[in-house]
């Protein structure tokens, strides 16, 4: 198989370039990560990329694969058109090769205060939550912070310092939707203004690329609706 991989090492390269690798003999069902690991082990030790669990749970290996963000460990080689073009996820500074600086992404995540906030004294037992209330968190808490969504979002590309981005807003809604949380007003006020929430223009790239099948656009819509209700 033919691969074209984005290469940039700040110690030696003035500009990035695409490097070609040819690797064959993969088992049926092999993933893109298997190919990258083979390239690194057998062809070129200098190729750098993040990876860990190899099963789509840790969120380390988001990259841009033939123009679309995804996780290399759950992207089947068979499904990819050759030459397979692999680039770092767009919109964030490249540290080296496929490794990007996710600082801004994490900053936006922290900025939505993604933790359960309860003002009442704690009971001795668990907070009660009906199965229906708990169902509201499905499709939200499963986010693995891979960044595939935010880095495919044009609004985030333009304003990564001001727009929270789909991943962080999904988490904002995860806590707004939690029957146990008591910081609704603060959370909504924090998201007011032209940028933090309202830079979302429902382009829905986030929904299209999410490797866990989550729907940040819907979560953002829910926040907007709640905000409206909260204001009137």
């Amino acid at each position, binding site marked *: 198989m033919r691969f074209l991989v984005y290469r940039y*090492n*700040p*110690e*030696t390269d003035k500009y990035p370039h695409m490097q070609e690798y040819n690797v064959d003999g993969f088992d049926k*069902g092999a993933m893109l990560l298997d190919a990258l690991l083979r390239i*690194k*082990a*057998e062809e070129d*030790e*200098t190729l*750098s*990329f*993040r*990876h*860990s*669990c*190899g*099963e*789509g*749970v*840790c*969120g*380390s290996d988001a990259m841009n694969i033939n123009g679309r963000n995804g996780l290399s460990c*759950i992207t089947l080689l068979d499904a990819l058109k050759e030459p397979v073009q692999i680039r770092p996820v767009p919109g964030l500074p490249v*540290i*080296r*090769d496929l*490794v990007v600086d*996710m600082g801004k992404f*994490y900053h936006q995540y*922290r900025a939505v*205060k*993604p*933790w*359960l906030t*309860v003002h009442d004294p*704690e009971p*001795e*037992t*668990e*907070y*009660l*939550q*009906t*199965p229906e*209330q*708990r169902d509201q*968190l499905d499709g939200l*808490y*499963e986010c*693995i*912070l891979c960044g595939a969504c935010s880095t495919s979002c044009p609004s985030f590309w333009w304003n990564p310092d001001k727009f929270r981005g789909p991943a962080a807003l999904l988490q904002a809604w995860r*806590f707004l939707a*939690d029957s*146990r949380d008591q910081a609704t007003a603060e959370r909504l006020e924090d998201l007011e203004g032209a940028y933090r929430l309202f830079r979302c223009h429902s382009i829905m790239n986030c929904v299209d690329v999410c490797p866990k099948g989550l729907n940040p656009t819907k979560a953002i819509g829910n926040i907007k609706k709640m905000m409206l209700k909260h204001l009137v």
Partner: protein
Amino acid sequence: MNIERRKFDTLVIGAGGGGLRAALQMAQAEAKVAVVSKVFPTRSHTVAAQGGMNAALANVLPDNWHWHMYDTVKGSDYLGDQDAIEYMCRAASHLVVELEHAGVPFSRLDNGKIYQRAFGGQSQDFGGDQAARTCAAADRTGHAILHTLYQQNIRSKTHFFDEYFSIDLVKDDEGYILGAVVLNIETGEPLLIEAKTTLIATGGVGQLFRTNTNARINTGDGIAMTLRAGIPVQDMEFFQFHPTGIAGKGMLITEGVRGEGGYLINKDGERFMERYAPHAKDLASRDVVSRAIAIEVREGRGCGPEGDHVLLKLEHLGSDVIKKRLPGIRDMAMTFAHIDPIKEPIPVFPTAHYTMGGIPTNRYGQVVMPTEQSAEETIPGLYAVGECACVSVHGANRLGGNSLLDIVVFGRAAGNHIIDYLKENRTHRPMNESSVKAALARLERWDKKDEGENIDVLRQELQRVMEDYCSVFRTEEILADGVKKVKALIARLDNARLRDHSKVFNTARIEAFELENLMVLGLATVESALARKESRGAHSRIDYPDRDDKHWMKHSLYFEDGRVEYKPVRTKPLSVDSFPPKPRVY
């Protein structure tokens, strides 16, 4: 010495559940906490834990902590330390509630309480009917707990050093641990973190084996660092093979599948666990189920064209239960086995999963070792929790659902102990520059630019040797060969060279350090296995098929120089009567 330095009250190495639970305890007590992790915290392997966390909440069936303790002692094949096990089982319910209050999105029962499912090795009333003790957030419990702990840590302003790799501990001549030399992966520059206490929470060493359920980061870095610091490692011969990894690939399929009512069948469609464990059947302990599968396959009753696996059947649970309670494993089976478990059974085979052994500690997380003064002398300033540690609550075989519990209980206990230690040790001790220099020498070793062996080739050979010579069934002959083979690989490691000598985000260099750690721990594992001439828990010797309590009810301690010593099991619990060893029947 020209190296950047930072000072904190306390250093935590590793940002999985154990490290983050400890860090949270200390940050909330207003200690200055640094957490160093080679990956961003939510990428730590706790994230992959599926089934849940044990606590006798009795939300579904009657339960109490004492039954949980009995099951854990029995599960450990009587190698677990009963003081630590009592402590853990007593603390469990409170700590699950604490996690729930912190935000963990546990699944719920109709009455609004935390959902609990049945898991292997669990019983009511000391060996009676099946219990339902495992608190679950669908089949993503580890993910839910890890993310929540990270969130609470950022709320508490814990200082994170993300993507820093720990090279070695720094210690002084009196044996105090003074912090660690770490490597900033992004810049490639070393950093000295000085701390009054250092807590190791770096997880297990599943990457020793070719087929494993573990992430690539699970290379036992903290265990190997401890060994290099002159401290022995305990019970390394006990490595858990999880009965249900996806055949040929290794991805974990949670025991929760069997807890929800799934079961194993061989090529004749027989529910074979009924023969091996008439009472508990598919929910016997993991070592028992793994051996049963291995025997079925060996005796020609395996499934598939090669007859090399068995099938895990769950279609009968119905699509609602599978989608609601087991959505993650359905995804996993569809992605990696290309089957939908709503329609077809999943091909499975035992897969390397969990390191029962590790850094010897007491129930406060303090690292202990034998000295002339005492059999369990504490190492001042050094703590360890979680899979890298050996308290030992898991003994020779860990029960499913007890590892998430272990990390939370002992993470918190170590955090509390460190807070007390800091009150009495208010200042940093003087730095020992020669120890810093020794750590930096590990970096320089990889600067050699001549030709040499490829690191990845050596890693793959090690994994194959461990799988062939130190697997589910073991004999003297095979293990002795294994020792020779691992030693030969270690000799070859001296001639390994990096081709990439750049600094910025050089992952090849990190893999070289990881391989050094894997090698020493591979040797520790086979040497300890060769030395133990009995079968107990996960350590199954064909040439010594029985448990031998008279000679072998003791923990092994492997030293870096190859010596293996032993120390007694702590059979006396804190407040209840001891559970004496009995034949282990499920």
